[in-house]
């Protein structure tokens, strides 16, 4: 009924409209055009994170669908305290990690990383990760533990702050900093193993 009265199309909604406003309008009108905007903005990103974490095309597609349903059904619970993108990424990471945990595919998601910090190791620069060829990044990310991968994606792909990562992972900010440091060291170690001839 609402659709007949307000035949709003997603192309009528300005690109400049913030996510938070799109959510508000969606909740107010239930107009599918607003859902379409959110889908356009985030479905590719959700799929990208899902395939990086789940390493399977079909599972990533199913996960994208389920995550979007979760987002739609819980949209009214979005408080606006955090950015909408942070809220969406939080749902995405937690969904994928729960799925891996249920399938018990990666032991690193079942137990806390108790390995001592490799403080004596040289700090890994951001440039080392950011300037890598995409094909290689893909290979390395396939090989490192899920928890390290997700924390690196949050920092370098989603541009999340330490505070935001700590909210998503429910860890203290200092623990997050340590986890990022370790994840970078594991990343470099895996890179060395894979591409020894160049390192």
């Amino acid at each position, binding site marked *: 009924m609402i659709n007949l009265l307000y035949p709003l199309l997603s192309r009528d909604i300005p690109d400049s409209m913030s996510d938070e406003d799109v959510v508000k309008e969606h909740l107010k009108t239930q107009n*599918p055009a607003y*859902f*379409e905007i959110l*889908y356009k903005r985030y*479905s*590719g*990103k959700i*799929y*990208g994170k899902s*395939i*990086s974490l789940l390493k399977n095309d079909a599972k990533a*597609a199913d996960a*994208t*669908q389920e995550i*979007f*349903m979760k987002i*739609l*059904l819980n949209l009214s619970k979005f408080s606006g305290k955090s950015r909408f993108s942070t809220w969406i990424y939080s749902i995405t990471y937690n969904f994928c990690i729960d799925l891996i945990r249920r399938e018990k595919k990666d032991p690193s998601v079942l137990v806390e990383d108790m390995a001592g910090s490799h403080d004596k190791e040289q700090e890994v620069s951001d*440039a080392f*990760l*950011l*300037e*890598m*060829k*995409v094909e290689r*990044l*893909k290979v390395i*990310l396939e090989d490192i533990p899920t928890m390290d991968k997700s924390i*690196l*994606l949050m920092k*370098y*792909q989603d541009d999340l702050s330490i505070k935001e990562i700590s909210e998503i992972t429910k860890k203290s900010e200092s623990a997050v900093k340590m986890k990022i440091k370790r994840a970078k060291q594991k990343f470099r170690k895996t890179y060395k193993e894979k591409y020894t001839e160049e390192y």
Partner: protein
Amino acid sequence: MEEKDTNSFKDLENLHSEDFKSKSDSIKLKIESETSTFRYLGDIIDLYFSKVMNVFIAMTGGGDENSNESEEK
């Protein structure tokens, strides 16, 4: 300055988004059909829930009138 623009993680995200384009429409359709089912069920509940509840109350002998009658007796 150039260093800031290079981000292999973002490039990977773009690559995945490109891959997703071929799947995007079918996934969107599935989500829309699932949400319309939810909406349909919601509408049914909205329409009939109160009536079903009234029938249920009547069947279990509840309701204000009954309780008044029994008090009078």
